[in-house]
C-alpha cells in the first residue's frame, strides 16, 4: 500500500488546487503545530520549523503567482 492510498492522504491529494507543495504543507501542518506545542518557544528548532513553514507558504504563493502561475 502506497502512502497516497491512505484515506486521509488520499483525501488531501484529491481535493484542493492539485499542487504537491501545498499538499505537503497541509499534511505537515498538524506535525508542525504539535512540534511547537511540545518544544515551546525557547527551543530554536520549533521557531525555525514554524518560520520555515510560513516562509514556504508565502514564498510559494508568490512564486506561483509571479513565476509559474496560470
Amino acid at each position, binding site marked *: 500500500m502506497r502512502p497516497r492510498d491512505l484515506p486521509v492522504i488520499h483525501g488531501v491529494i484529491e481535493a484542493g488546487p492539485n499542487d504537491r507543495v501545498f499538499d505537503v504543507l497541509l499534511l505537515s501542518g498538524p506535525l508542525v*503545530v504539535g512540534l511547537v506545542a511540545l518544544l515551546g518557544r525557547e527551543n530554536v528548532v520549533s521557531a525555525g520549523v514554524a518560520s520555515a513553514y510560513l516562509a514556504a507558504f508565502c514564498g510559494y504563493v508568490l512564486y506561483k503567482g509571479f513565476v*509559474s*502561475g496560470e
Partner: protein
Amino acid sequence: MNGARATIGRDLGRILQALAGLMFASVAVSLAWREFWAVPGMVLSGLVPLGIGRVLTRRYGGADEPGKLHGMMIAAGGWAAVGVFGSLPFLTLAWTVELSPAMLATPEMTPTLAAFRDPLNALFESTSGFTGTGLTMTDDEEVLPRTLQWWRTFSEWIGGVGVIVLTTAVLARPGSGSLTLYESEARSEKIHPSIVSTVRTIWWIFVLFTFVAILALWLAGMPVWGAINHGMTGLSTGGFSITDNSIATYDSVSIDFVMLPVMVLGSIAFPVHFLILRGDLRNFYTDLQTRWLLVLFVLGSGLLVGVLYFTGTIDSAFAAFRYGTFQFVSALTCTGFQTAVGPVKNPENVALGNWPAMGQLTVTFGMVVGGAAGSTVGGIKVIRLATLLKGTRHRVAGVFYPDTAVRRLTIDDRRLSDEEVRREFEEAAIITFLWVAFLGLGLFVLLAVLPPGEYTLENAVFEIASAQGNVGLSTGITGPSMPTVAKVAFLFNMWIGRLEIIPVLVLLRGVFSRGGLYR
C-alpha cells in the same frame, strides 16, 4: 407534507450525527488537558444528537432529495438544531461541576462556568459559536475549562464554513440534493462542477489557512494554546477568545498586526483563494468583491483612525491607527475580536463603548456590510452593496436614454440584461430591506428591555448590528446578566443573520402554516 417531513427529518438526522462526531472528537482535548472529569459530559452530549440523528436517518432513509423549499427548511432547522444540541457540552460540564460526583475530581465552580447551568445561556453561547458571532455569556473566558474553551472555538471554526458544508463533505452525497442544501446555507459559489468536490476543496483551503494562521500568531508572540484557538476563530471570523479581554489581553502590537491578515483571509471568498493558490494573483483586483473589500478596508480604517485622532479620543496617532484599523477590520470581516477595551493594560486604550458616536457608527457600517459572499462572514455582503449601488446608478442613468436603448450593466465581469439586472437588484434589495427591518425590530426590543439611561442609542444600534451581522463586538450590553427577552431577541438575530433571513422566514411560515396559525 409527509414526504417533506421525511426529507427534512432525514437530513436533520445527518446534521445531528455530524455534530455528535464533533463532540466525540473533542474528547481528545479533555484527555490532552487531563480534564478527565469532562469526558462523561462530552460523551453524553454526543450521544444525544447521535441517537436522535440515527433514529431520524433510519426512519426516513428512503426520503426524496430536497427541493428548494425543503432545502431552506433543512438549513434553517439544521442551524437551529445545531445551536440547541451544541449547547449540551456547556450544560453538562457546568452541571458536572455543580453536582461534583464522587468519582470525578471536578474543579472548583466559577461564576463564569456557573452561568452555563442556565440552559438559555448555554443555548446563547452555542448559537453564538456556530453562527460565528462571538457574543458571549461568559464573564471571564480564561477560567473556563480547556474543554469548553475548545468547544467554543471548534463550534466557530465549523460554523464559519457551514454545518451543511461539513455534512456534505463527510457524507459525500452527490446529486442535486446536496447542491440545494449548499445554496440554502447562504452559499452559491462553486469551485468545481461537483458540489462534493467543491466543499472538500473549501475545507482543504480552510484547514491549510488555519495552520498558517496558528503558526503566524505563535511566531508573533501568542502562547500556543491561544494561537490555536485565536487562529481558528480569527480565520473563521468568529471572534471567540480564550482570554478575558479578547486580543487586548496580549497588548502586543505585533499580534494585533498579524491578526489583521488572518481576519482578512477569512473574509475573502473561497473560490478566490482557490484561484490564488493556483497562481492567479490577479484575482486580488479582478474579483469585484475582493477589490471592493480591500478599498473598504482602507477607506473605513482611514475614516475611523481620523475620527479617533481628531476628536481627541486617542491622543497618539500611532495608537489611533493601531486600534482604529484593528476594530474596523474586525468589524468588516465580522470577526469581533476586540482590542479597544479600555485602559486595562495600556493607558492609550479607550473602550469601544466610549468612542464618539461617529466612530461607533463607522464600525457599525462595517458590521452591516460584512465581507465577501462565499467566505465565512456575516452582514449583507459586499456583492449586495455593489449590486445596490451599481443598480441604482443604472436605474437613474436610464432616464437619460431613449426607451429603445439596449443597456447592459456589468457586475463582476458579468454583462447583465435588463431582466437580469431587475432580478439581481430585487434580490439584493429584499435581503437588505429584511436585514434593516429585523435590525430595527431587534433594536426596538432591546431599547424596551434595557435599563433606562445605562446605554446610549448608538450602543444599542451597535450591539444589535453586531448580533445580526454575526460579528461579536460589544459595547458591554451582552452578558449573562442581560434581560432574558434581549437574549432571546439576540438568538433570533444571530440565527437569521447567519442564514440571510429568508430560509428562517420560510421555515417559520411552514411551521405556522402547518399549525394553523398562518393561512
